[in-house]
């Protein structure tokens, strides 16, 4: 869903705070404050470890043999590091279904992202810089669509895709992702585009540039950071999807989340396949996140989780 990140001017209010102690800080106060800081450091370190542990646990589980996972917990590796093995990954490499679904994930995520960025950039330009009747109304509609639950469209679009022979195809999944990626994308880019100085656009128009040239030569180069944020955000959003593909993909076009889902029934018995498969599917988002975290965080802050 998309939130409107606002930075309204905040008034500095006069705040009435009762005076409870001397403003001068004695050595005791300093000691207590240092102690407090130490506690904060330790507390936050514990929180950070807590946050990493679940992922670490799955990673270790994926690096232990099926027998080892059945016999003891992943934390056993602290005493028996020799148990670590790449055997599960070797087996995963030979699993054709998983590999095909991994490729499907790429075939779904890349075109979806590309189409959303291109189509939304065009629309955002019109909303930001071209005067036409109903422009405000259209912009408000886009803002309204930001939180639209995809459940609303599942049944009708399934019917529509059935009629168009798109049901169970990668193209169908891509189209659906594009549709539900657009409101946020248009909103984000429109906000950025309206922030571009008028002079730049006007100067180009004075020189006789067409709207298309203004869009290509003036707006897009300036908007690179926003386009990067959008690209990464949209890519991860589609990459991580389960529900859309669950409805619209068939066995041959299923992405990795859907392919792994069928193994869930026997969670305990399939932990070797599930943990390695989950890491295969997480590897790409994690690399993208670590490499472009600034853009991703900005994208999420502006758009959060649809």
């Amino acid at each position: 869903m998309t939130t409107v990140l606002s930075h309204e001017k905040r008034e500095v209010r006069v705040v009435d705070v009762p005076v409870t102690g001397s403003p001068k800080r004695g050595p005791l106060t300093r000691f207590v404050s240092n102690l407090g800081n130490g506690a904060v450091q330790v507390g936050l370190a514990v929180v950070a470890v807590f946050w990493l542990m679940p992922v670490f646990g799955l990673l270790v589980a994926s690096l232990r043999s099926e027998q080892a996972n059945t016999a003891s917990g992943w934390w056993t590796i602290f005493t028996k590091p020799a148990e670590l093995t790449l055997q599960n990954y070797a087996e995963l490499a030979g699993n054709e279904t998983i590999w095909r679904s991994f490729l499907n994930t790429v075939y779904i995520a890349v075109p979806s992202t590309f189409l959303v960025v291109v189509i939304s950039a065009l629309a955002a330009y019109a909303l930001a810089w071209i005067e036409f009747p109903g422009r405000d109304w259209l912009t408000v509609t886009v803002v309204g669509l930001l939180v639209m639950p995809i459940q609303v469209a599942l049944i009708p679009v399934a019917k529509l895709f059935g009629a168009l022979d798109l049901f169970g195809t990668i193209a169908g999944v891509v189209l659906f992702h594009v549709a539900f990626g657009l409101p946020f994308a248009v909103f984000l880019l429109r906000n950025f585009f309206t922030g571009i100085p008028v002079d730049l656009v006007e100067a180009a128009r004075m020189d006789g540039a067409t709207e298309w040239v203004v869009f290509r030569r003036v707006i897009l180069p300036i908007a690179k950071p926003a386009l990067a944020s959008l690209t990464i955000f949209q890519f991860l959003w589609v990459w991580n999807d389960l529900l859309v593909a669950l409805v619209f993909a068939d066995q041959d076009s299923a992405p990795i989340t859907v392919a792994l889902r069928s193994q869930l029934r026997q969670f305990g018995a399939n932990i070797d396949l599930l943990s390695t498969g989950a890491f295969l599917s997480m590897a790409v988002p994690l690399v993208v996140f670590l490499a472009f975290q600034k853009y991703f965080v900005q994208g999420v802050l502006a758009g959060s989780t649809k």
Partner: protein
Amino acid sequence: MTHALRGRRSVAEPGRSPGKAVLFLLPALLILGALVVYPLVYSLFRSFFDASGSRFVGLSNYVETFTDPRTLIAFRNNVIWVVVAPVAVTCLGLILAVLTERIRWATAFRLILFMPMAISLFASGIIFRLVYEEDPERGVVNAAMVGVHDVFASPSPYPGARPRSEFDASEDGYTGTATVSRGGVVSLPLVGYSRQQLPDSARPVSQPEAGGTEVRGAVWLDVSAGGRPGQIDPAELGLPGLTVELLRDGAVVSKTMTGDDGRFTFPDLGPGEFSVRLPADNFALPFRGLTWLGPTLVTPVIISSWIWIMTGFAITFIAAGLSAIPRDALEAARVDGATEWQVFKRVTVPLLAPVLLTVFVTLVINVLKIFELVFVIAPGSVQEEANVLALQMWQVSFGSGGDQGVGSALAIILFLLVAPAMLYNIRRFRRERS
């Protein structure tokens, strides 16, 4: 991007060629119209028709939605989610965001907590499915609970062992049906325990002699090759370290422990009839943690995984708001001698209120659409108990249900639930633009 949002609010200057707007807008309008707006209208119509889609049934799909027990559980769970989860994440995010301002590695900290946002809800579900596995040899939460539990409560010596016969089982333990008076002998053959698990100190048992003024007896494992049930056979071992109680009229009058050969002796307690009891804590099964993924705890468990995912978002969002608070206001309060808590309560939180509200609304919408986590974490057998509207909608329409009329009604209900947020966003947008 952020600086655009930060409100360099130069008013968009109209272009000179309005006709061209259509070309720029056409692809987006076509796709949004066909795959978002039209489906909304269609779903609304469809929700008034039956499963086959051919018969108009009025509001009966909605009536069914509000009377079907499965859907009602989903409603109940959605209420629990909305009440608990966003508040928890907003508070946690606020506290951590304020605390991270006091450490040097704030960026690294936020990065770690933000990381779950990058991976799929599906993968997060698998991660937490493993975390909460019931077997303490696999699930880390139960392993930790068992570890802590065993520090405070020593494990019972003979879990699962039980007397062969002639005993009444109760919550307190096994009480002998026959009575004994002073000078008597009690034989307590036990079964249901493996010989290999006996402590090394266990010695072969022998029949205690009757006589004297004491009550004597032996507790042994009545299991051996060719052994006679209820009789002491040569190869059979006593059970050392087992607590035995002597009762008179149902009250414990004496307590003792068996020796290495399984024998025990009660001192002379005067005349009367006694009975012998083996207290239950001799045989208590070891603590194995909680059934996290069972019907009672599954929703709290899934909420905890959602908190793990969303807290990083709340921290980052709130931290951005914090950095916009004028330092002077905080410093002024501190110079006036306010404690950190007072600064937090009277300065930071009031100034952050709009940001907190936005975070909260975002989280509520996210919670209403929760699907994957429940789908993955709740095992099939308890999915009904963990059900939420978004999952129920999928199940009714595409899973086992096969009723797209009710499915459409659920979709429309979901839409109506997020509609206030839609209006909130539009109003905000209008306000910020003016």
